[in-house]
Structure formats: C-alpha cells, structure tokens
C-alpha cells in the first residue's frame, strides 16, 4: 500500500471514529444530565442547564425517595422478584419435556407455548382488566404478577429449551440407569447444568417486569401499590415544577437496570441475540 492511500484511510478512520464518539455523546449526555441535575437546585437548572451544581444536593434524592419513590421501589422489587422466580420455575419445567420427551402432539404444545411470543399485551388489555376483576385480584400485586408471568413464559421457555437441546445427554443416561425418577433427573441433573441460561432469562425477565408500564397503569388503582414506572408518572403532577427532584426520582428508577446491565452484560447480550424479541 502506498503512503497516500494510508493517509486517506487514516483520515477516513478518524472521521468515522469522530462520528461514533459524537453519537456516544448524544446517548450519554442526557443520562449524565439527568443524574447531575438531580443534585442541583431548581434555580441552577433554570439559569445554567449545562453547568455543574455548586454543591451536591443529596436532599433531592432524599426528597424523591420520601415523596413516593421509596414505596414504589419496594413494590417493584416485590413484584419483580416474585414474577421472575415463578416464571423461571414454570418455564424450566415446561422446557424440560419439550426438549427431551418424545410424544404425540409435541409440536402442537411447542406452538401453543412459544407462539405466545407473537401476541401483543396491548390486545389483551381490556379483556385482562375484566378477567382480573372477575378473579377478584384487580388492584392487588397479583394483578401484575400473574399477567407478567404469563407473558414472560413463552420467551423464557424458548430460551431454556434451546439451551437444554444443546446439552450433552450422557449424564442423564447414566442417571437413568441408576433409577432416577423424571423429577430428580430434571431437578438434580438437568437444571443445574442450565444455570447460565437461567441467569440470562432471569435478567431479561427482571428488566421487562421492572420497566413494564401499561399493565401497571391499568391493573392497579391504589397509589400505595404502584410500581416505579407508573409511580414516577404520577410524581410528575405531584411535583409540578420541582424538576430537580423529579430528575433525582428518574435516576433512582433507572439505576438498578443500568447497573445490572453493566455488570451482567454478557448474559444480557446472549439472551437478546438468541431471541431477537423486543420488549
């Protein structure tokens, strides 16, 4: 390669690199602005939207927590942990026969379970609302937990089943010869081998439940039962122009998922690229 060519490709590289950096700034800046503005006084935010706060006002975070975010946070934590645990257990149980057993109609069962991935929760909003009222669980934690589990099962089962299909079968064969029951085969042998995909599934399920908005808006009436996404929506009107407290509330709501993502990036990426399903 001649020198001139090298110079040109170096120029192109720098140019493209600059574009990538610019785009990174567009992504990062609003998030940083959210975190930093949460430390400002309202006046500082007005006069100098770009500037750094004169001193860190932790009290905004404290006020945000006290004015409701704390309560919503605990609600979200409860709803998310129950939904994720139950989803994982039920999906793993379901994936086991779908990946191992041979029986008539297996494909139909597979289609029923995994086909649920394609159905939008929006379509069921009205009828679920009515169904939950009839089941007398409307406006309780269960009005969220049960639909969340149902809508997470198809994708979670899909992920776990693909993983189970890829596992070697020698260990089960010898366990079977030792007279293991099907339950012990599943619980003591196969499930422990599925830890990586269970972790991935748990993360993705936690993310979708933690962030879910529409069901949480419609199936809960009582403000003390609200989860974070709807809770902070209501804070907006309570706080009216107390922007900086609102920004602190937003930061508190977003941080758990950002931290989980940064720590467990590998598991996130694996799950998302296997499924290619959004939301």
């Amino acid at each position, binding site marked *: 390669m001649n020198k001139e060519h090298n110079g040109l490709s170096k120029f192109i590289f720098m140019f493209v690199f600059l574009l990538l950096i610019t785009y990174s700034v567009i992504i990062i800046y609003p998030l940083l602005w959210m975190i930093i503005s949460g430390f400002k006084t309202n006046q500082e935010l007005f006069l100098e939207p770009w500037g750094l706060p004169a001193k860190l006002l932790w009290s905004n975070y404290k006020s945000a927590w006290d004015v409701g975010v704390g309560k919503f946070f605990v609600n979200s934590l409860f709803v998310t942990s129950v939904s994720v645990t139950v989803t994982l257990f039920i999906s793993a149980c*379901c994936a086991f026969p779908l990946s191992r057993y041979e029986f008539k109609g297996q494909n139909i069962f597979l289609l029923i379970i995994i086909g649920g991935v394609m159905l939008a929760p929006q379509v069921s909003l009205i009828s679920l609302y009515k169904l939950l009222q009839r089941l007398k669980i409307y406006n309780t934690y269960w009005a969220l937990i049960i639909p969340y589990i*149902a809508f997470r099962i198809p994708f979670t089962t899909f992920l776990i089943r693909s993983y189970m299909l890829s596992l070697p079968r020698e260990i089960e064969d010898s366990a079977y010869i030792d007279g293991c029951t099907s339950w012990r085969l599943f619980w003591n042998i196969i499930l422990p081998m599925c830890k990586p995909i269970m972790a991935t599934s748990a993360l993705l399920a936690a993310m979708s439940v933690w962030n879910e908005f529409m069901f949480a808006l419609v199936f809960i009436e009582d403000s003390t039962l609200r989860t974070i996404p709807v809770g902070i929506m209501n804070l907006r009107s309570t706080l009216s122009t107390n922007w900086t407290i609102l920004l602190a509330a937003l930061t508190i709501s977003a941080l758990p998922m950002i931290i989980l*993502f940064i720590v467990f990036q590998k598991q996130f990426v694996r799950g*998302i*690229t296997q499924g290619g399903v959004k939301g």
Partner: protein
Amino acid sequence: MNIYRNKKVAILFMLPALVFVILFIYYPIIQNFIYSLYRWSSFSEVKVFVGFDYYKRLLSDPIFYIALKNNALYAIISIVFQVGVGMILAAVLEEKIMRRYQTFFRTVYFMPSVISITVVGLLFQLVYNPNIGLLNAFLKVVGLETLTHDWLGRSDTAMFAIIATSQWQYIGYIMLLFLVAIQKIPEELYESAMIDGANAIQKFIHVTIPQIKETILVTSIITIIGAFKVFDEVYVMTAGGPGRSTEVLASYMYRAGFRNDEMGYAATIATVIFLITFIVTLIQLKVSKEKNEA
C-alpha cells in the same frame, strides 16, 4: 430412554405453563373479540349486542386514521433509523480497525434500551422543555436560536419528537442483533472480496448485506410490530395531544376504554392492533419459509 416416552409426565411438567398461557394470553384475545361486539361500560354488568357496529364506526372515525397514520410514520422512521443506521453501525464496529473499541461503543449504544420507557419519556419531556430543556439550550449555543421550539407542545413537531426519542432508545438494541449476525459471516468471504480489490463499502454491499438478509427481515418485522403496538412513549410524553395529533392505536384504545368508558369500542381498536401485528407476523413466517425452501 423409556422415561422420556411417558406422555402423562410430560404434560404434567408443561401444565402450569399451559394454564398460564391459555388463560392469560389466548383466552383474553378471543374474549376481546367478543367484547368488541357489545356496547358495555366497565362499571355496569349490562351488555348490549351491537354486532359489527363499532367496526363500521371505526372505519369512519377520523381519529382512527390519525392514529393509523402516526403508527405508520413510527414504523417507517424506525425502519430507516433502527434497521438502517443500526446495520451500518454494526458493520462499522465489526471492521478490523474498530474492533478493539467495539465493547465500549456497544455498551454505550445499547444502554438506553435497558431503561424504562417512562424514565426515558419523562427525561425527554424535560430535554424538549422550552424553558429548561437541553435541546433549545443547545440550539441557542450553536446560534440556531430561530429553531427553538416547544417541541412536544406543537402538533406539527410533537409526533416527530416522540419518534426521535424512541430512535435514541432503540438503535443500539437493533445494532446488537446485527453485530451478532455479522460475526457469523465466514471470514473467507471477506478475504476473497479483498483479493478482488473490493473496498470497505463494496464489501458491505456485496458481502455483508446478502449474508444478513434474514436479520434484516427479522429486525424490520420486530420494528414494524413494535411501531403498531406503541403505547408507553405516547402516553408518557403527550397522552395523544396536543389535540389528538399524536394519538396512536394503543393510546386511542386506552382513551376509548378508560377515559370515555366505551369498552366495546376500545376492544374493537384492540382487535385492529391484533390483526395488523398478526398479519405482519404471518408475512414474516411466509417469507422465511420461502427463503428456507429456496
């Protein structure tokens, strides 16, 4: 293994999942269609059979067409940015010279998609805010003061402002799907293209794109379906306003059901959302099937 032939045990293992999925996913869809044939309100037990009246009304409802248009706009812009830009970004990050920076850019670009739409929506409401917002402040700094705007408060820009937020959030997500697809392309294809003297852009057009056709299809379908069921962004940022200028199908359904208490009409709109997303999915299945057979 004989143990794996016991159908009863198999069904026992699947039973909880089946109950959940059938009772809370499939049954509500059928029930929704039935609900759309009745006039009813959420607080009374009275239901009046009206047949397909609501469907007729929907077809002559101007707001339905505004919503449909906004959903379509959402889909088109999202395909251009999420699929188009996402694909190009992935190809650039997979270039040899960029690979050592890939993890950093990937992490940054993907990050917004793990945050809830409510947080992002409320944040961008402040970014677009005419008084304290970053966007107008930025325009002033770079001397484009004439462009400053009440972005979400005016009906000619509000829809675009919402859609732009959604692009900000999800380009990185689609990019990730492309990254993995590009990583699966055999290196030899690029090597032989190099021998033929192809430059980076030619390699992208003649090697990369044909190899990731399937991913392009899948991401486009995901994006279209996502655009026709969008709710959170609109509800959080404008609730369909100003006027009805940012109404989409799902927000209109919510308004019909829970604001105007016309549950039957809301169920009708839900059926339309179902039909659109279902047809798009069928097209995807058909196209991928034909591709696999060819």
